[in-house]
């Protein structure tokens, strides 16, 4: 095996002597992955700030209950900014230093798009509710009636809570008095009881006794929006770009083999007392190591940025090895077909720039039409990207990615056998 390792080591030396190779591996590929990651993150909500939903708020009642209503709206949807009461130093409400808002200006702001909705709390809001009379809160919006309106849904949810609380206030005393042997001694006691019922009801509403567990397809995290959005972008770009650059690192082996044949170094090696498989095997092994180094560089950079690639490192490495093996096999098989340096260079570039987008290295395959997702499966890149995404976004493990790893290994084996049986040393 000494000759095998001698060939592999020298091939690595030759590969890393090339400045272009070093720049591609250590500089261009990380830069490209970072740029694409930032872009992908921004498209999917990435590094943009948490959306702020400006809603104009005109409180004509100025009561405790109307203030509580505003607070409940904020609790129900933390993205809501009630203008002008929630305005800040950065003038998030776009009020140009105005402290108050009248209905005409609010309508104008709606039309201009400075706000998304207008809520008007009428005068007598609190007293009417306490007296058991219905009140009407005005809600104006330019939203598409056929589409879901998150702000309206928030307002409706909060008004339901308030209505529910007051229903409880209205029915609770009667329910208590209907019980045998109990009667409020006076109206004050009855009113205090009603107030307690209201407080308890409101508190229970706020606790959301029945909750819907809402899960986004992509885990955006909840502690640091910057990290979580980076996770989205780099979770796609790091595996994608590194997979593409792995191909850029391995396919040139075709050119190298042709040049060795032209320069007669390959023939000279055949005339040494080394088994033939040591020669091409050593050269392909060097490309395998190069591919793994390429993966290591980009995933290492991402790890430094705090990007998580799931908890199963072994599965991650196996996916990388499977893909690199598949591309090494494909390279060996293609090396038996190409006849010139020009052909080899052309095929390397064409294959890389076809297999990468086809297999989802540039963008997630999920966003492509169904037929493209089917066609994409002819690319080993698709199997690798499926596995990477399962590990990164779905917290998958070894068992999840095993089918992809096996398919990649099978692709590599088939092409290696074809290549080894057809390879000509002359």
């Amino acid at each position, binding site marked *: 095996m000494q000759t095998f390792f*001698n060939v592999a080591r*020298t091939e690595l030396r030759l590969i890393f*002597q090339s400045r272009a190779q070093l720049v591609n591996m250590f500089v261009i590929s990380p830069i490209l992955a970072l740029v694409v990651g930032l872009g992908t993150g921004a498209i999917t909500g990435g590094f943009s700030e948490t959306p702020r939903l400006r809603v104009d708020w005109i409180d004509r009642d100025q009561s405790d209950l109307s203030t509580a209503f505003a607070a409940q709206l904020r609790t129900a949807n933390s993205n809501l900014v009630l203008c002008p009461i929630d305005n800040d130093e950065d003038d998030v409400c776009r009020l140009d230093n105005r402290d108050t808002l009248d209905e005409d200006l609010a309508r104008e702001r709606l039309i201009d798009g400075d706000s998304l909705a207008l809520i008007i709390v009428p005068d007598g809001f609190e007293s009417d509710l306490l007296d058991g009379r219905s009140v009407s809160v005005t809600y104006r919006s330019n939203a598409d009636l056929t589409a879901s309106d998150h702000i309206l849904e928030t307002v409706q949810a909060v008004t339901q809570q308030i209505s529910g609380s007051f229903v409880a206030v209205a029915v609770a005393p009667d329910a208590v008095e209907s019980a045998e042997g109990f009667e409020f001694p006076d109206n004050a006691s009855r009113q205090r009881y009603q107030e307690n019922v209201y407080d308890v009801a409101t508190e229970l509403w706020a606790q959301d006794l029945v909750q819907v567990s809402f899960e986004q397809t992509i885990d955006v995290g909840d502690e640091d929006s910057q990290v979580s959005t980076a996770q989205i972008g780099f979770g796609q770009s790091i595996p994608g770009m590194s997979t593409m650059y792995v191909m850029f690192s391995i396919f040139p082996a075709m050119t190298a083999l042709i040049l060795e044949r032209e*320069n007669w170094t390959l023939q000279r090696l055949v005339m040494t007392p080394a088994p033939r498989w040591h020669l091409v095997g050593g050269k392909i092994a060097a490309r395998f190591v190069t591919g793994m180094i390429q993966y290591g560089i980009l995933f290492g950079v991402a790890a430094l940025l705090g990007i998580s690639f799931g908890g199963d490192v072994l599965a991650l490495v196996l996916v990388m090895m499977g893909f690199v093996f598949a591309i090494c096999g494909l390279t060996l098989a293609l090396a038996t077909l190409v006849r010139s340096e020009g052909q080899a260079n052309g095929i390397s570039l064409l294959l890389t720039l076809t297999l990468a987008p086809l297999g989802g290295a540039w963008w997630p395959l999920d966003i492509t039409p169904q037929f493209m997702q089917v066609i994409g499966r002819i690319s080993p890149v698709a199997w690798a990207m499926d596995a990477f995404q399962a590990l990164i976004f779905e917290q998958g493990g070894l068992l999840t990615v095993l089918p992809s790893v096996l398919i990649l290994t099978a692709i590599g084996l088939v092409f290696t056998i074809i290549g080894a049986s057809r390879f000509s040393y002359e």
Partner: protein
Amino acid sequence: MPTMLEVQNLVKEFKRRDGDIVKAVQGVSFDIHEGEIFSLLGPNGAGKTTTISMISGLISPTEGDASIGGHSITKEPLKAKALLGVIPQEIALYPTLTARQNLEFFGRMYDITGQELVKRVDEVLEFIDLVDRQNDRVETFSGGMKRRVNIGVGLLHRPQLVYMDEPTVGVDPQSRRRILDTVLRLRDEYQMAVLYTTHLMEESQELSDRVGIIDHGKLIAVGSVGELTQQVGEEDRLVLNVGEQIVGEELLGRLKSEINGISNVSYANLAVDGAAAQGEINILATRGRKALPDVITLLNDVWIDVSSIEVREPDLEAVFLNLTGHALRD
């Protein structure tokens, strides 16, 4: 002396794209002894490179076998290769590696490692006189220096048999002289057997203990230079330069039939790559000088101007002409 290489009835057939079988080598047999320089002499395309490609294990023979130091190239190829030093016609080196790195790499391919490798590399660098440039990349070397490294790689593992395939092709006269001296040193100082292929009669004549003449895939004569030249007896070779004039078969036939003492006549155009013709008429004749006036008269009759005439003693060129009916450089 022990036999280092024994070639037995080697045959190589290639199948062309149209399905036809081409016999590149047809039953070649010869042997080389320890401390002997054996030249395989023949024109381009005669089958020299195919023969040595089979001997060195690059391609498999269709029939026949060869053994190096008693090891068959078909049955024990790795043992046979371990005894063979390869010096191909091409500069088979890695241009971006230094001379030392190239030598070390190929040395390891012969299982030489550690201090032994360092020692051998130092020895070879001294032998090829490149100690001071050992850490420079080969791509920065002159053609002659690259040739020397190319030779050094083939000698590093101290082979018992060295094959050199036209090692002087494309080198300047000074480097050529140096290479020929190196070949002689391998025999005289290291007792190595050398298989030397060339299409240059002069090199073969100067270096060889024995010569094998190969043409159209067949070994047509084997022997020392003296033995081979005896085959053409006392015949002189007349070499007439006729410049751009083309000489046809009819005139060659008249020369042979109308002038007494001429045994063989051939015409060769020495021009290369579409350049203007450089015609040369080769005539084998007993007492060539006496036949010369008749030759000139006949050529004048058909308006062929002769720009130069040379009368040569019997040599390998004459042997080749005598055996094949055409010149070595044809």
